[in-house]
């Protein structure tokens, strides 16, 4: 049910109610041309968003105009009375074309003896994901987006930034999660974001489910100013042929952890031998990371983009370890692969890296580095074979650090094996207060152009 204290202009429609009514009729066999539906679930979002951009210094120009988008979309899962299954996308046209769609879903039905049943309702966490202050912007009062981008543009262009790309957006969506066993979840969420990217060298931004606190915009602009300046100064770096120390910035570190570690935790990949980790490794709780490192699902953080009341299948949001103290605990599992592997399904939420007793600040790590590179961006991460840990990446925005001081930029190519790096005793972590992922320092091969 829709909470009663929400503003009247929430874009709530009767789509979900109508879908439920039509699916209940399908359960009763209202359509003569297809078998009865035995079970169903759908997960749909209906929303509005507004966006404004600066593209190559042009605010609100033809490639980044003020835009408004309305949409409704989601997914549907059906179990027919003969145990066949259907998976389909749904949209606003599903209701007026329901009979036709039902016939299409049946035509595409398939047999899968391992497919899951419909989930019984379970309590879901009540996490704050809605900021009413965003409503007016979404309704078309986009002056705030203009002001944000204009402030960034004025301040950055008055420093050494020649070309600026930036964007700001606000959105509101209603989520409708329903199933034939009684899951009935309806709630709104909001999102507010902006980002600035200077001279194709460095970018930073804000993105949460609430309006940013005072001073956040100024902090982001200052960060972009300082780091762009560093990246514009050329430097020299003499790589040690036996390996060089590098620091992956929090963004790049998060990308490595996501691709090489989290990317190999998919239940389907583990179960089908398409991952670096085997199912037996989880059963034996194999040590794959250092004892001080854990990977943790957390869906309970208020206003975070990763907050979750439930997955699309109805698994409640929550907290759970996938890797704890370096040992494999469980793959990331939907209902089907939970059934196949025997591990519990994974709660909805974002994946976070935890490092015991490591509270070193990012700036301190830089100050303590004798000679090495700070990597602010890599090209080609999506081309890597993450099942074996090997990486070979271009790092054209790398800053030389010498005796704790930033000297300037070099273009580097870095290569090594992340599985080995993450196990090494001298691999270190540090934290930037506004980032979820840690910066990571380790040794690898470096080539400089």
């Amino acid at each position, binding site marked *: 049910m829709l909470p009663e204290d929400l503003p009247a202009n929430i874009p709530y429609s009767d789509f979900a109610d109508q879908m439920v009514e039509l699916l209940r009729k399908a359960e009763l066999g209202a359509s003569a041309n297809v078998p009865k539906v035995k079970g169903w679930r759908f997960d749909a979002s209906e929303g509005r968003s507004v966006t404004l951009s600066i593209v*190559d210094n042009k*605010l*609100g*120009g*033809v*490639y980044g*105009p*003020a*835009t*408004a*988008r*309305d*949409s409704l*979309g989601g997914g549907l899962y059906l179990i027919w009375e003969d145990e066949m*299954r*259907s*998976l*389909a*996308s749904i*949209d*606003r*046209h599903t209701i007026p074309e329901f009979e036709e769609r039902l016939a*299409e879903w049946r*035509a*595409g*039905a*398939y*047999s*899968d003896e391992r*497919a899951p049943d419909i989930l019984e309702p379970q309590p879901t966490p009540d996490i704050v994901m809605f900021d009413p202050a965003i409503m007016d912007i979404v309704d*078309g009062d*986009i*002056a705030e987006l203009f002001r944000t981008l204009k402030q960034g543009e004025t301040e950055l262009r008055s420093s050494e930034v020649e*070309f600026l790309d930036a964007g700001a957006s606000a959105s509101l969506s209603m989520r409708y999660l329903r199933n034939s066993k009684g899951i009935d979840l309806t709630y709104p969420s909001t999102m507010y974001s902006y980002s600035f990217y200077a001279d*194709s060298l460095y970018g930073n931004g804000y993105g949460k489910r609430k309006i940013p606190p005072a001073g956040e915009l100024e902090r982001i602009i200052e960060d972009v100013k300082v780091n762009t300046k560093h990246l514009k100064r050329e430097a020299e770096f003499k790589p040690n042929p036996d390996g060089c120390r590098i620091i992956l910035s929090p963004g790049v570190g998060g990308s490595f952890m996501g691709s090489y570690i989290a990317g190999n935790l998919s239940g*389907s990949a583990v179960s*089908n*031998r*398409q*991952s*670096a980790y085997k199912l037996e490794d989880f059963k034996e709780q194999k040590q794959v990371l250092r004892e001080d490192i854990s990977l943790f699902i957390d869906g309970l953080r208020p206003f975070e983009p990763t907050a979750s009341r439930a997955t699309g299948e109805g698994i409640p949001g929550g907290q759970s370890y996938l890797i704890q103290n370096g040992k494999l605990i469980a793959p990331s599992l939907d209902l089907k692969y939970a059934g196949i592997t025997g591990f519990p399904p994974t709660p909805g939420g974002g994946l976070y890296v935890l490092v015991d007793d490591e509270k070193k600040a990012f700036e301190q790590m830089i100050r303590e580095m004798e000679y090495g590179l700070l990597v602010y961006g890599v*090209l*080609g991460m*999506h*081309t890597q*074979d993450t*099942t*074996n840990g*090997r990486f*070979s*990446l*271009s790092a*054209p925005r790398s800053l030389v650090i010498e005796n704790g001081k930033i000297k300037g930029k070099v*273009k580097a*190519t*870095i*290569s090594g094996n992340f599985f080995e790096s993450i196990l090494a005793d001298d691999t270190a972590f540090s934290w930037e207060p506004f980032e979820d992922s840690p910066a990571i320092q380790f040794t690898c*091969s470096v*080539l400089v*152009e």
Partner: protein
Amino acid sequence: MPKKLRVAKYDDTIEALLSRARELDVYAIGRIMDSQGRSMTINNGRLEGISTGSGTGMGVSVFTREGYTGFASSDKVTPESARKIVETAAKLAFSSSVFGTEPNLSVFEIAPSGVQTIATDYKTLTETSYEEQVQRLKECNEQIREYGTNLSVRSSHWVNDSHWRIVRSDGTDMSFDLPHAAVGANITVTGTSGNAVSTYAAVSGPDASVLLDNAYSEKLDLRARKMADLAQKLVDAPRIRGGNYKLVIDYALAKGLAHEAFGHASETDGMETSILGKDGKMRLGEQLAAPSVTITDGSVLGDYAYQPISANGMPRQTVEILKDGILRAGLADLFSAAKAGVPITGAERIESYRNLPVPRMTNIRISVANPIPLDTRFELVTPLELREVLLSNGLMQADEQVLYLSGYKGGQVNPKDGDFVFNCASIYALHELENGNPKLYQPAIFSGKVLSALHSILAGIGPILLDAQGHCGKAGQSVPSSGGANSFIVIDRNENVTIGGD
């Protein structure tokens, strides 16, 4: 017989959209998309799932007489919704003028494209049997699993049939379809040491024939066999020493080079910062590559990235961007062509009705003049045979270090400074024979400077092949892309082209 397009039924919506624009005294470009798709996956012989999808919606770009612009979209395709999104876009355009945004009047300077329907006759989804697709995909999956011991194979197949209608306030009304389909296999092998390696083989085309017709399935089989063999050998392959080498790349990698390293830089929306621009104008007439090199972009009927009409309702032209090494033209859209100093070529594409059009490639290819003939079918050319072709044509000395990079795994580019990277599936050292064959190394990133790489092209080997398939991400939108080159391209050693490694 050409298809009947589903977007033909929206005359009332189109009329409502255009008449509301007239009432508000704004110029409108309306885009209606009606898309249908189907995908399926077989994992180690088991059907993982079949998914069906459809999406219908409408987007409208609105321009005030002063050239200020706003955009709105909705998934309701009705006359009422059309009027509403025109009003919303107009309101945004008028508010933008207050905030000092940059106007663009190009839309008032173009001639109408008329009223046209360009429909293909490729199979619709209703003409395509699920059972036949599933059965064939299972057979493919099982066949590939037999190409080695302990192979894990995930096969996937998808077909999409999008119908589009683009209208403008000047009377333009263009309808067309964009069918595309592919079938691919991810092959994973785990060695005795526990190391895993994954490779990928695929073919693409316009419809389910990519899976069901012999010509395509034979090609997929040859590619999958090669990739299964490669995955098994890569498990214990060493890493290459990083540095600068003379290179031979296959046509899929050459497509990557053309696309990532050059195509994006030739898109006119970025000309103020592109390496192919100077003071916002294209550097037309400059020699930017070896004189033997020509780079062409254009839509090909039946290709995965087929696009006959632009997202602003203009015919897509085939463009020789680089002719004999000289920059001749750009991939130019309605809004940035004039400023870049080149004619409009209808290069605008969009992922969905929700997106804004930006110039980008369809099928881009590199051709090298006077290529060395090659009789062997591409999929059957061995590294050893390639070495012999190089030696016999004076492109390699017996003791010269030459690497053969095979299989494209994607890439990335920064058109503003000309840095590109792309990755291969394997590297063979043609100068290092092991058991009579060139030695195999792990894949490594191939990075460099665009113009240095193009200036260093020494030769093309074999016929031009155009079906290297991929997806292009730009402005947050992914669209199908494809292209190719001569079967193999030889690039001289260059200090600005680096192979990453130990």
